[in-house]
């Protein structure tokens, strides 16, 4: 049987969803029978080398680089899945959407207790290598079409596992209610 090709990425997330995925523990041995990873932080492949069947997205979009990576995933993955609250609705980082970005930056680099008095010239990160921060944090489906959403912060390992197996086998996603959580 040809293995299903899977790619994963972390955008404006905390890597918790990837960690939850790894919490499938010994099922990782079953996983490598079923799928082969392409671009993913798990195997450190940095660029797509082919079309993939399934893309798992952790995190929403908080900068232009996130948007670029997400569009690249859409172009290279037949099925795209938003994994976790950050991807689905911006998650915790989207709490900044009610606050002007300049205030958040000022707190982090000028006024916060660990920086106050140490940044007399008021320097903000401005290296041209840095991505441009967006005014708000955007959920993935506002940028590209997303085929499935797996809720949770993070979604349980078993939920990710069962969803992935169903997608690999082409079955409908019938995920047990007990496995789904929304926090």
């Amino acid at each position, binding site marked *: 049987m040809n293995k299903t090709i899977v790619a994963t990425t972390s955008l*404006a997330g*905390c*890597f918790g969803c990837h960690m939850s995925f790894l919490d499938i523990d010994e099922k990782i041995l079953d996983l490598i029978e079923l799928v082969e990873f392409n671009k993913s932080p*798990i195997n450190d492949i*940095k660029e797509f080398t082919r079309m993939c069947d399934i893309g798992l997205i952790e995190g929403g979009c908080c*900068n232009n680089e996130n948007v670029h990576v997400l569009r690249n995933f859409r172009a290279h993955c037949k099925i795209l899945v938003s994994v976790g609250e950050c991807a689905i609705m911006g998650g915790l980082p989207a709490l900044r959407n009610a*606050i002007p970005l300049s205030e958040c930056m000022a707190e982090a680099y000028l006024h916060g207790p660990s920086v106050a008095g140490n940044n007399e010239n008021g320097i903000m990160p401005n290296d041209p*290598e*840095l991505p441009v921060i967006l005014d708000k944090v955007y959920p993935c489906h506002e940028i590209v079409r997303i085929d499935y959403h797996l809720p949770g912060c993070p979604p349980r390992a078993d939920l990710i596992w069962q969803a992935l197996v169903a997608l690999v086998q082409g079955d409908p996603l019938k995920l047990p209610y007990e496995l789904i959580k929304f926090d």
Partner: protein
Amino acid sequence: MGQKLTIEPITRVEGHGKVTIHLDDENNVVQSRLHIVEFRGFERFVQGRPYWEAPVLVQRLCGICPVSHHLAAAKAMDAIVGVEPEGLTPTGEKMRRLMHYGQIFQSHALHFFTWSVPICYLASMPVPNKGM
């Protein structure tokens, strides 16, 4: 101006980073830079929330070491409600220590089994791997 090599993303750290290595015309390294490319604004948006939310909010700083952030916020809560470190109950203190030891154990196992070992293994495979 010489060449610039970019390693992005770096995947053996939590957080989102990239490394740029700047070369001169003779391909000598002029400068190597680590860029922390993510800004989320936790410093500001946790302000104004109910204080007891803080430990759960800051766990989301890092999915790899959430316990450290949880305990740091728990200490800040102690300070807010006026509990000195000596004022913690022995059970409370032990539970925090247990959580922290659990995290250290989990973190080492994670690093070894899912980060270091596969990368050594994968590095020998014919994939375009620029291993970090």
